[in-house]
């Protein structure tokens, strides 16, 4: 038994900044100081504050060390772990305000958060099933199997108001009821862990930090709909998540929490992993199931819906990782508890992966109804370098941009839809004034063109034509009527595409057109990019009044595009200029500007 627990983040962010080396060194130093019996090192899932990784928390004090380097370890062990003296220079500066160490949950980043799906991330060792049980894990499954009927379980979910966290927001209880009502000799429970939106890492963090919560919920789902087999479809690009899932499934089988006759109830359930090869379209439910069946991951028309004919033509439910992670908590704490959080039509909390131009890049979980302003300015710590907020992108390639005027809209499924975006799986990318919205729309279109599976024409060809128009606009070659063509194409894709990938692909274009139409017009009519991003519309020039003829710019120009002699005004040759901006960055007199 340990008197002190040192938790080191083993999530993807901190692992890439070297947390494994820190763990190894920590164990070595602890042993060298004779503390191996007293101090335990625990590798956990994501704490959320990825920007400050590698992160370490020492309990029972609750000391939060950020950006820990390997060389800091001997000091932490000798001072803090041995002698109880906190190494103040490594403390997260938010916790050291006013000369006093404040608890982590009172800092701006954590105080507005409410962790349900992430409750164990950064708290337990995800590779130890007993730690999960110690925080109340598998209680929900036990209660369900020994005390509730399948219909009870579905009713609890309906009462809780839980909606699918993968993006569409379909009521989970209803989905389960449809599958439960269809009789079949075999049914399936699938977990969608094919998180593919650029900038999204919510599901990944849950699988890495609390894999048993997902397994437990899938077993509950199996009981509710009458399925004995589950599949988790997870991206092969998530090696840590895959490894921890494998360990978790192995341990759950060993403890008899998966397998036959669980809790002596006669209920059998097992789970297998299926690794996705990284096609974005496999996050679409019918494509995902086609891929599990061993075929090429392409969507098929619905109906029939999976609840009737899903995997291997059998009734199937498919839920997202985060949806599952909420379910054991709903069973244990009751549907009223869950429904007390959030807004009228969107209950509970939502996890967001905060990225882009924001100080506290990381993973946050807030009650539905929290405003974008609270997330960006308070939890996210605002925008770096004093820049102005321009827009936030939610929902990835299927979502849209939310401009500054809607910063105070309470975030839930319906509000986001009303302002032309969508909840999506929870990626939230913040953009500042230096972002060109046409360029952003182009970026997402490039993504959908790459990821379109090619099965249906509107998506395969439509996205390509849309991208070509956007390229024309960013090159200054478009006419105003191209905008009409673009909007018409958007409508066709929305109504005629086979699956959600194509149906929602126009969203980034439509929402930027809605809120930033003037930027499109500036590109087309004035042949200018107001944010100074689109290179073809950009010209670097030298102000003759400011240039001193120091020749520095001419020497660093990689394209030899700057001409001029010592102590004479220099000039940029637009034919040769590659618009890299190196001259502007280096000029000591501020003589170079772009327009």
């Amino acid at each position, binding site marked *: 038994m340990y008197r002190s627990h040192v938790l080191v983040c083993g999530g993807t962010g901190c692992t890439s900044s070297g947390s494994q080396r820190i763990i190894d060194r920590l164990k070595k130093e602890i042993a060298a100081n004779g503390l191996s019996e007293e101090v335990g090192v625990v590798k956990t899932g994501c704490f959320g504050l990825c920007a400050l990784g590698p992160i370490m928390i020492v*309990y*029972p004090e609750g000391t939060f060390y950020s950006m820990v380097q390997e060389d800091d370890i001997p000091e932490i062990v000798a001072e803090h772990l041995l002698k109880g003296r906190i190494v103040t220079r490594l403390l997260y500066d938010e916790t050291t305000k006013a000369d006093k160490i404040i608890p982590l949950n009172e800092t701006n980043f954590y105080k507005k958060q409410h962790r349900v799906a992430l409750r164990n991330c950064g708290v337990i060792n995800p590779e130890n099933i*007993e730690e999960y049980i110690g925080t109340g894990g598998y209680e929900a499954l036990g209660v369900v199997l020994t005390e509730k009927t399948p219909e009870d379980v579905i009713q609890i979910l309906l009462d809780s108001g839980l909606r699918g966290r993968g993006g569409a927001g379909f009521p989970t209880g209803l989905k389960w009821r449809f599958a439960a009502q269809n009789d079949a000799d075999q049914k399936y429970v699938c977990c969608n862990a094919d998180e593919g939106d650029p900038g999204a890492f919510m599901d990944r963090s849950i699988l890495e930090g609390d894999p048993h919560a997902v397994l437990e919920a899938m077993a509950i789902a199996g009981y509710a709909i009458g399925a004995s087999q589950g599949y988790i479809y997870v991206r092969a690009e998530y090696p840590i998540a895959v490894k921890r899932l494998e360990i978790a499934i192995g341990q759950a089988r060993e403890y008899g929490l998966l397998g036959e006759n669980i809790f002596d109830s006669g209920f059998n359930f097992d789970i297998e992993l299926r690794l996705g090869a990284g096609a974005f379209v496999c996050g679409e439910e019918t494509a995902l199931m086609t891929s599990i069946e061993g075929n090429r991951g392409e969507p098929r028309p619905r109906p029939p819906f999976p609840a009737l004919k899903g995997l291997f033509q059998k009734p199937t439910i498919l839920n997202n990782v985060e949806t599952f992670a909420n379910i054991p908590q709903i069973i244990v704490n009751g549907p009223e508890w869950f429904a007390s959080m959030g807004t009228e039509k969107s209950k509970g909390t939502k996890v967001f992966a905060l990225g882009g131009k924001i100080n506290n890049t990381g993973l946050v979980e807030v009650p539905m109804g929290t405003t974008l302003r609270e997330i960006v300015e308070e939890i996210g710590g605002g925008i770096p370098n004093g820049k102005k907020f321009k827009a936030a992108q939610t929902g990835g390639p299927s979502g849209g941009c939310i401009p500054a005027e809607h910063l105070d809209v309470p975030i839930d499924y319906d509000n986001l839809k009303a302002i032309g975006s969508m909840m999506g799986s929870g990626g939230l990318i913040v953009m500042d004034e230096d972002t060109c919205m046409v360029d952003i729309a182009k970026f997402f279109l490039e993504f959908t063109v790459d990821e379109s599976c090619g099965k249906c024409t509107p998506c395969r060809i439509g996205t390509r034509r849309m991208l070509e128009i956007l390229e024309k606009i960013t090159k200054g070659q478009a006419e105003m009527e191209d905008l009409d063509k673009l909007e018409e194409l958007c409508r066709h894709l929305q109504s005629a595409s086979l699956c959600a990938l194509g149906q929602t692909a126009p969203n980034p274009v439509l929402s930027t057109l809605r809120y930033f139409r003037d930027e499109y017009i500036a590109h087309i009519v004035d042949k200018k990019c107001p944010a100074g991003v689109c290179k073809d519309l950009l010209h670097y020039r030298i102000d003759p009044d400011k240039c001193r003829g120091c020749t520095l710019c001419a020497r660093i120009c990689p394209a030899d595009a700057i001409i001029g002699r010592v102590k004479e005004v220099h000039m940029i040759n637009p034919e040769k200029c590659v618009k890299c901006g190196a001259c502007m960055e280096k000029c000591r007199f501020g003589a170079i500007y772009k327009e």
Partner: protein
Amino acid sequence: MKSLEELHAIRKKMQGRVGVRAENENQIRVVVGMATCGIASGARPVLTALSDAVQEQNLSDKINVTQTGCIGLCQYEPIVEVIEPGREKVTYVKMTPEKALEVLRIHLIGGQVVAKYTLSAAQGNRTD
């Protein structure tokens, strides 16, 4: 896993251990002086005895056993301070693991200050 009881047995065993990672302001804080003076006079066994007992008895959500540096009363080490929200701090001196467990039983669980081990008692004895 055959029954909820079996699950609860594992949970009970683990709860105290995972509970070390709980933070709340209503916890009783038990602070053991672990500077050189404290360690030299035997603070480590006191700390581990308290920490183990609290975890074994599943009290870690209520009692937070932690360590600190030199309190400044080196001749009285090992020192254990008990800080309860809304009550005056109690300082126990010259602790041993046995005395510390007595403090746990009578004071931290029972609510009665063990007067004979406190700093004021020790100072009273000296002036006598």
